[in-house]
């Protein structure tokens, strides 16, 4: 479903290569996890896939269901089914969370040639999904992420994912800053969406999240490359020994 081949990315403003040939395929129905030291390029990968400005792809390709992602505008990628839960969700003063959600849902429907959701149906849906994530009515009314706690922001990302029902979900450290209960809620939110035609790419530093979301495949990223790929046991190894052994083994 998501196919990344030999992806090289540098910063637009500087001559600094950050991704140095990433190869990665996520099949429909699977959950892949990426772990890796700080600064190894995990967030950069997720930003480049979702179309953020400031990066230049110098080589390689990324496709979703065979369609060239790198050619598309960010909104087209979203309409094609790509979703990124941000490591640092953005605050938007003046735009209510509800308005934001409804605008997004309707924009994607429109892009797919579907009818807009009625106000009543939308409200019902959003309330129901918010409830399972323990997001209260007040948080829905407030401006997007403004004054939300770190954990609330992350739950709000999962709410957006639940509303948009993307085909390919990338979660960038959605577990960081979450308390134990919130982590469970988020994991349940992810697990509820697991289905044979949906893929996940979960970026995390900790085994804890992977206890709840059992990954099929675990990748280790270092210095802009995937340096090792394995099963769930790889995450346990990292948890116990850190990255030193793996890095040494590859070098």
């Amino acid at each position, binding site marked *: 479903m998501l196919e990344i081949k030999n992806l090289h990315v540098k910063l637009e403003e500087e001559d600094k290569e950050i991704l140095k040939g990433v190869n990665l395929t996520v099949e429909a129905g699977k959950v892949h996890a990426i772990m890796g030291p700080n600064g190894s390029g995990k967030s950069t990968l997720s930003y480049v896939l979702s179309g*953020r400005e400031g990066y230049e792809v110098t080589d390689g390709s990324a496709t979703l269901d065979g369609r060239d992602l790198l050619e598309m505008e960010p*909104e087209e990628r*979203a*309409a094609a089914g790509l979703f990124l839960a941000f490591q640092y969700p953005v*605050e938007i003063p*003046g*735009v209510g969370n509800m308005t934001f959600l409804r*605008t997004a849902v309707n924009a994607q429907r429109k892009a797919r040639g579907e009818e807009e959701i009625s106000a009543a149906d939308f409200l019902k849906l959003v309330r129901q999904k918010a409830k399972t994530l323990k997001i209260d009515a007040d948080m829905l009314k407030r401006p997007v992420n403004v004054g939300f706690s770190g954990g609330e922001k992350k739950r709000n990302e999962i709410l*957006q994912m639940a509303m948009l029902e993307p085909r390919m979900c990338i979660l960038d450290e959605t577990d960081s800053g979450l308390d134990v209960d919130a982590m469970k809620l988020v994991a349940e939110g992810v697990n509820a969406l697991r289905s044979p035609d949906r893929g996940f790419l979960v970026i995390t530093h900790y085994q804890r999240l992977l206890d709840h979301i059992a990954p099929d495949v675990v990748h280790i990223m270092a210095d802009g490359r995937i340096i090792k790929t394995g099963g769930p046991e790889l995450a346990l190894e990292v948890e116990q020994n850190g990255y030193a052994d793996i890095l040494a083994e590859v070098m």
Partner: protein
Amino acid sequence: MALPERKQSVTEARLAGLEIPRGGCTEPAREAALARLWQMGLPTRRDEYWKYTRPETLIQPQPPRAALLRTDEPPMFDAFDRLKIVFVDGVFDPQASDDLALEGVRIERIADLCEQDIHWARDLYGVLEARGHEPVPRPLAAFNTAFAGDGVVIHVTGRPSRPINLIYRHESEASDAVLHHLVRVEEGAEATILENGPAAARFNKCMEIDIADGGRLHLVRTQGRDHERRAATHVFARLGRESMLKCFTLTVNGVLTRNEVVVEFTGDEAVAHVAGACVGDGDFHHDDTVFVTHDAVGCESRQVFKKVLRNGATGVFQGKILVREGAQKTDGYQISQALLLDGDSQFLAKPELEIYADDVACSHGSTSGAIDEEALFYLRSRGVPEGEATDLLTLAFLAEAMDEIEDPALAEEIAGRVRGWLARHR
């Protein structure tokens, strides 16, 4: 003291051949205003107060021609139940207007008021304007008092069930309209006044507002529809004890607009909010000049101005809060912000505080910036197309000013106009 030569000559050129309307009770006030005007002279670019806005086209003898805009958009406030008072190129049109009778308010034409000799309005006409020249002269307002050709006197004694809508129609490409309105809100009375329309090729309007203790006035104005028209407006407001004024102005288009608002608190615990939102594209110059004087205890003033500028449009804000000695517990707030949608547009701001009391809370801030790229990407990553996302962020930027409109239906009407404008100007 003699006027500088340039000032003298533009003033002479403008006033040559002009006669103040004679007869009736406003005549002495008009004479006095004319004398004031000769003393201060019309504005020139040399004046500090006109540093950012060129006054030439506002004071030259003939106005530049202004094409009429043909549009399919329904007139503003069209769906609202309101009392309509229509002026066409600055002249009251009784046929197009509603019957002026409305419970809780008495409305008369300035011209009619002059037929009676004794009228409360005589003690207001030109009075607040005359008080409003310290410390900076506002010669276009004095000109207005002297030469206003029409206008209404609105006396609010109760709580009229409908808003009063002053509608200004522009039908001649060369019209030069001068309107002067008086509003008196009596103790405990409350009303909403709406104003809209392009009025004339050149429009000079002055509204003097006197609010008695506990009175409340909502003033919601929209302007700028016919892009080529030029407008200079003044509001002079005096607020009594525990009274309230909320003034909001939306400007879309307009090659030249200067809106001056002068507020004076004379009674304690009063509230005045003056807000404006404007959206301008290209050949657009919009100037908000506001002066708030606190001369009473415990009053609250807010100035909230937001400007969206693109394609070389210019926004100007000159705002001042003056807190006089003894005006303790003053709560003064002022913010002016511009959203520059490209690198060509500019925002010129001169925010000022002058405080002579020690127990006050006053703040001011002025910023200009571009669209928040992070927020834009966030929206786009959720599937919202760039244009729509930009509009959403633009409306969010304007929100603080729009929030000053108390009535939700009016606020929605205004927001709808802005959305329409944004969609047409992507």
